[in-house]
């Protein structure tokens, strides 16, 4: 073995030795526990999300969640597909300028049954602000039993009226307290929404 070959071999070995920690740090494949068909389906959904410029992390995370919950492969593939389609619909609804959090919150809201028109109204009323908080709160309220239309209208009115993130984030817990006390979920939301001071933007003074 001449000197050049020895150098090449040592360089290759050093490269392998240096790459080993980073390769190991990636950990085992989280989808390895899926059956072949489900794994292929999930992988194709991840690839599709990447190709369409959608965030892939929520898709991967949903598959990981299913594996951790010991859900069967076909169910995981179906749920991951629902997440992917919801993300796609959220992007189509909110526009290409929507950030990752808005997309994931919008996808969750759509999965909760909130109509796409409600998302569009929030976007238009947002005056350029991120609508992640109203979307998350809206999905939460529907999950607690507030009728979708009631929740959509109330959150839109508060958002249009200039309610802040803290105002909105405080709503679910207050509504939950009223529901536990016996109030109907829709009534609980409307009553609590009335207590939030509306800060409308100042009107323009004609010159």
């Amino acid at each position, binding site marked *: *073995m*001449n*000197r050049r070959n*020895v150098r090449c*071999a040592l360089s290759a*070995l*050093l490269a*392998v*030795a*240096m*790459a*080993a*920690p*980073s*390769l*190991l*740090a990636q*950990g085992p494949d*989280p989808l390895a526990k899926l059956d072949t068909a489900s794994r292929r389906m999930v992988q194709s959904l991840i690839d599709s999300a990447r190709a369409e410029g959608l965030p892939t*992390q*929520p898709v991967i*995370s*949903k598959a*990981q*969640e*299913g*594996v*951790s*919950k010991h*859900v069967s492969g076909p*169910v995981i593939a*179906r*749920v991951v597909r*629902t*997440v992917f389609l919801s993300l796609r619909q959220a992007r189509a609804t909110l526009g290409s300028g929507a950030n*990752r*959090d808005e997309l*994931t*919150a919008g996808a*969750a*809201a759509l*999965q*909760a049954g909130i109509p796409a028109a409600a998302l569009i109204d929030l976007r238009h009323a947002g005056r350029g602000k*991120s609508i*992640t*908080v109203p979307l*998350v*709160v809206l*999905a*939460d309220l*529907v*999950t*607690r039993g507030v009728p979708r239309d009631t929740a959509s209208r109330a959150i839109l009115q508060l958002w249009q009226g200039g309610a*802040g*993130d*803290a105002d909105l*984030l405080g709503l*679910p*817990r207050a509504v939950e307290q009223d529901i536990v006390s016996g109030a109907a979920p829709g009534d609980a939301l409307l009553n609590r929404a009335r207590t939030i001071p509306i800060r409308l933007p100042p009107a323009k003074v004609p010159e």
Partner: protein
Amino acid sequence: MTESNQDPYVEWIAAEARRPVQLAADARVRIMDAVRATPLPARPRRGSRWLTAPRTLALSPLASAVLAAGLVGIGVLVGISTTSRDGRQQAEQPTAVAANAQLPVHDSLQVHRFELRDPLASNVSLVGDFNEWSASATPMERTADGKWTVTVHLPPGRHVYAFIVDGAKGSTWMPDPAALRAPDDGYGAPNSVVLVGQGSAT
């Protein structure tokens, strides 16, 4: 140019140049003394010469394989230690910062404390999209008053999570009762939502 038309001044210079130089009798001795007094330039030491001198390295196939295995083994050991340290670091935050719901750590990560009151649980762990939903990655610690807490570093944004509670009924997934809820995702167990860096530690 002939001898007859040379300048006398030039002729004088030429004569001076041809005249042999008379050195003092001890000049040679003094020059040699000065040479001996000048220190020699530093030569590389034997060790450094051994390290820097080119040489041919001959290895048998067996020795090459042993060397390769050794280098890869070192890499694997370093990788294992790095991986296990990363897997634990979220759960090993100092309790001093756990008193705050959110504290800025640096430009991107924020400290967030998760808390669940369940005095009857024997073990509680935190799972979420920030730890690949690994049941073993983020165990929670029990406090004297029956709370289970853990502090983790999270990037800003929307995160989905849940608790795994080991109790009398076995292992149960449950949402955070004090947090925002995520809609049912089809797996049958609801999750919670935390918005990091958006004005609330909800």
